[in-house]
């Protein structure tokens, strides 16, 4: 039974994966790994890379895909495996040239790019920066504000639950706290943005 599951889980279609990523279904990640990681890992390991580096590159490539799906109207005009492979290859080449390994990588840099993924990577890096600012702001906000905001906006807890969880005297008090936290977060976020 478990074997059958494994087999069917490997043969998941590209559209299913894209739909899974779009709705934030984290279970799809396992399938992404099983379907696409081996070939990319092989490419990187056979080009001066370690298995851990392969994992890093692969994760970044998947994030490129994630950003593409969540931030833009994503049109699948190649196979997902091709897209991920091209992105990983591009990323790995960049990393290698940063390391100064260019001489030894003729075998993968010689090929023409199958897909023009440069734009997608650029896009991904902008989005990454943007969200990094939010993460940074949240980090600077500190506790308990961070948890309070997450509980309310992400986990969708009711004001009543939050009042109990944080031990406020009443829900109005909690509302005031939430407002203050949010204002602080906005302040931090936008000042950081101006600084840059």
């Amino acid at each position: 039974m478990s074997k059958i599951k494994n087999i069917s889980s490997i043969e998941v279609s590209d559209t299913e994966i894209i739909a899974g990523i779009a709705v934030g279904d984290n279970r799809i990640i396992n399938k992404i790994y099983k379907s696409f990681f081996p070939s990319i890992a092989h490419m990187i390991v056979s080009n001066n890379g370690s298995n851990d580096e392969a994992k890093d590159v692969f994760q970044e490539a998947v994030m490129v895909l994630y950003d593409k799906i969540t931030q833009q109207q994503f049109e699948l005009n190649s196979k997902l495996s091709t897209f991920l492979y091209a992105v990983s290859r591009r990323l790995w080449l960049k990393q290698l040239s940063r390391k100064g390994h260019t001489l030894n990588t003729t075998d993968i840099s010689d090929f023409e790019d199958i897909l023009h993924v440069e734009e997608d990577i650029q896009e991904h890096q902008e989005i990454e920066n943007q969200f990094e600012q939010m993460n940074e702001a949240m980090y600077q906000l500190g506790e308990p504000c961070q948890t309070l905001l997450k509980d309310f906006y992400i986990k969708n807890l009711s004001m009543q639950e939050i009042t109990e969880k944080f031990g406020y005297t009443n829900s109005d008090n909690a509302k005031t706290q939430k407002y203050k936290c949010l204002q602080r977060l906005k302040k931090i976020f936008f000042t950081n943005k101006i600084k840059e």
Partner: protein
Amino acid sequence: MQRHQFIEWADQYLRGDLTGVDAQAFEDYCKANPEYAEIFSTHQDFINTLKEAEARNSFKAALAEEATKVEAPTHKGDFGAKVISFWSRLQINTGVAAAVALISVFTTLWLTGYFTDVKKATSDYSALRREMNSVKRNVTAQNKVIQNINNSDKSNKETTPTHFGATGFLLTKDGYVVTNYHVVNGADSIHLQNNKGRAFRAEIIHSDAEKDLAILRIVDSSFRNTKAIPYTFKKQLTDVGEDIYTIGFPRDEAVYGQGYLSSNTGYAGDTIAYQISIPVNPGNSGGPVLDAQGNVVGIISGKQKGIDGAAFAIKTKELVETLNRIPQESLKGNIVLNNKNSLNKLSRTEQIKKLQDFIYIVKVY
């Protein structure tokens, strides 16, 4: 309305806590107050960014967590499977290619007449000399190889001399013997052994490759002239159907063979030979073919492979011609063929008894 109260209201709206009329009231309020509408839109954007950031973070975390579960990929299996599938895909192509290659090779060979050439080149005429020591020779060759493993260059050129056996018979009582040219061709030394087991050294006086005849003379000092030759030589053509017989040495003992003369020409229409129907074997070469009266009508030379009872004997007339062609200086006195037949009155068994003294094993080294 204070700003924080509006935000609270907006949050309720965004979470969908407001329904129906309440939601409509919020939207109406935003329309009525553009400054609050802008506050709402920035707030909404900010909250969305916050949500997306969190969703992204959780996805990223899940991705990183999954990575720890993934083991180093096993490429070997993948690779093997690929090779196998590659092979199975090409198997049919390979088979077809091989078949086409084979067919074209053999077609070409057939079209260019290769096979007919082969047939012509490897004659089915078989000379009837006997390899006497093939087993022994193989063993000694093998021993030599073993001995020469270390000093290989020294004696590679030495080849064991081939050792053949055949039959020969006396032309004259003073030691002229006739046998086949192919028997003595390339011989180092020739020994003739009579039926009593005595061997005499002989030398080639004359050889006629065309007629496949060789005239030897016994030069051994122990050789004494024999009694008078009992048979005569019949120079005229013998008729087809004549009852004939031979004595030869296909093994170390004299073997009698009997048959009839089946054609006036030999192998492939060769006019110097008869076709005879006598069971002959390697070793019979050079044996006399006699008719019922004890006249030598031919000398056995070979047979046709793959055809039953097709042996060939060189006509006596050719022998006489060869003898006449021998230069005088290579002879010690003339060869005078016997013309007094002492066999014609005797029964076959008596003839054979008398004949045996004049028919020798020819051993060639």
